[in-house]
């Protein structure tokens, strides 16, 4: 039986791994390679690293650090942030990533998904959607362009159509809040997509993961809870298991 994945999702900034709160302020988690090594030792299901310097400042992707992180990972590694071309994807994969997360580039040019998935396979292409709630309505948000008049579900369906392998759905309002996942948001996606959805933003306690999955998330991503609380990924899995949701319990 397929297991629900619990995925640390951390940000790379100034050669450090950080955690953001509402995409705004940052707290340092630690050195990238030692953090990756700990995640690997703890058998986390997967790891997502987003290079926010490259995505916001238009700087080059930090391949050196990505290589160092990948060398510690014997689990799947997704790298995102600042990917603008097919050559960037080749370079990130050569550095040791297994998948790439795409965000700004596919808002500008949706056909890039098709191009990328036909070369690298759909399994390699994670399409990332950031969402903000404005006047009771969920709208797509982009770090560089602000709020866009786009419906997140419609956008995810288009991404799927163009060859996305997975959707990484982040609630900007919930991100770093520890007040729980945006259940209103994930409920809109329930049974709508044929591809898996990773829900990100807001986990503060293991129960939050249970309601996220019960309401339509296939996998969940988080960062704050793993670094600034007493909970480990395994605590979350135990809670999911108690609720009869399938997880990989580490041996």
């Amino acid at each position, binding site marked *: 039986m397929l297991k629900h994945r619990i995925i640390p999702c951390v940000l790379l900034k100034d050669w450090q791994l950080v955690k953001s709160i509402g995409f705004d302020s940052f707290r340092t988690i630690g050195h990238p390679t030692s953090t990756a090594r700990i995640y690997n030792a703890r058998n986390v299901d997967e790891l997502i690293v987003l290079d926010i310097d490259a995505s916001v400042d238009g700087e080059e992707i930090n391949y050196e650090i990505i290589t160092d992180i990948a060398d510690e990972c014997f689990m799947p590694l997704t790298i995102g942030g600042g990917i603008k071309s097919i050559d960037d994807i080749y370079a990130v*994969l050569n550095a040791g990533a297994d998948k790439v997360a795409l965000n700004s580039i596919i808002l500008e040019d949706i056909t890039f998904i098709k191009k990328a998935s036909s070369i*690298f396979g759909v399994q390699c292409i994670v399409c990332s959607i950031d969402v903000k709630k404005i006047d009771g309505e969920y709208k797509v948000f982009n770090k560089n362009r602000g709020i866009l008049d786009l419906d997140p579900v419609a956008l995810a369906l288009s991404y799927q159509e163009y060859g996305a392998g997975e959707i990484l759905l982040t609630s900007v309002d919930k991100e770093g809040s520890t007040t729980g996942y945006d259940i209103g948001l994930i409920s809109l996606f329930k049974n709508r997509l044929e591809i898996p959805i990773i829900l990100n933003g807001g986990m503060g306690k293991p129960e939050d993961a249970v309601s996220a999955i019960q309401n339509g998330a296939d996998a969940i991503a988080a960062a704050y809870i793993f670094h600034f609380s007493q909970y480990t990924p395994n605590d979350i899995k135990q809670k999911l298991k108690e609720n009869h949701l399938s997880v990989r319990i580490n041996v």
Partner: protein
Amino acid sequence: MGNLRSVQKAFEKVGSNAVISNDMSVIQNASKIVLPGVGSFRDGMKHLKELNLIALLNEEVLEKKKPFLGICLGMQLVASKSYENGITEGLDWIDSEVVKFDFKALEKQFKVPHVGWNNAKYKKENILFRDITDSSDFYFVHSYYFKTQEDVISSITDYGFDFVSSVNKDNIYAFQFHPEKSQGVGLKIIENFVNLENIC
């Protein structure tokens, strides 16, 4: 064709080394052969053809009986044919075909691709599973699966139904999941492969 570096790294981790090559003489001189790969079946076969590697692989694996490890697409390529983007002939080392997951007829919907950790239930002895508990979880990511009637199935995995997650025929070992991305149990498979006695 996907992430060769991950596979190479896994060999290094278990104290071995793997050379990434499409050079015929390097492959001829290798003691074992690994065919990893993600991406499409059609592209995979096209590349093997363009690089003139098909006859060479047949000779090294079928005749000289070099241990062969196929991973993900590398497993599917040993099939007779695949239905991915039309029909494409494979290496045809195992009488089989590769078809897409289709859950339209089922009441409960399963997502495609099949992504994540799922357990492999043993069907028959496969020396590469040595020292790994039955039904351990491995990392999968694929939309197509391997169908065979041959008595080669070493494990099955449940995703709406039981599909073939690994096969073994003589010196051919192939896994639908990614041992190189499956932490301890996956590295154990790589280690067991490295430690196979070379019978050529």
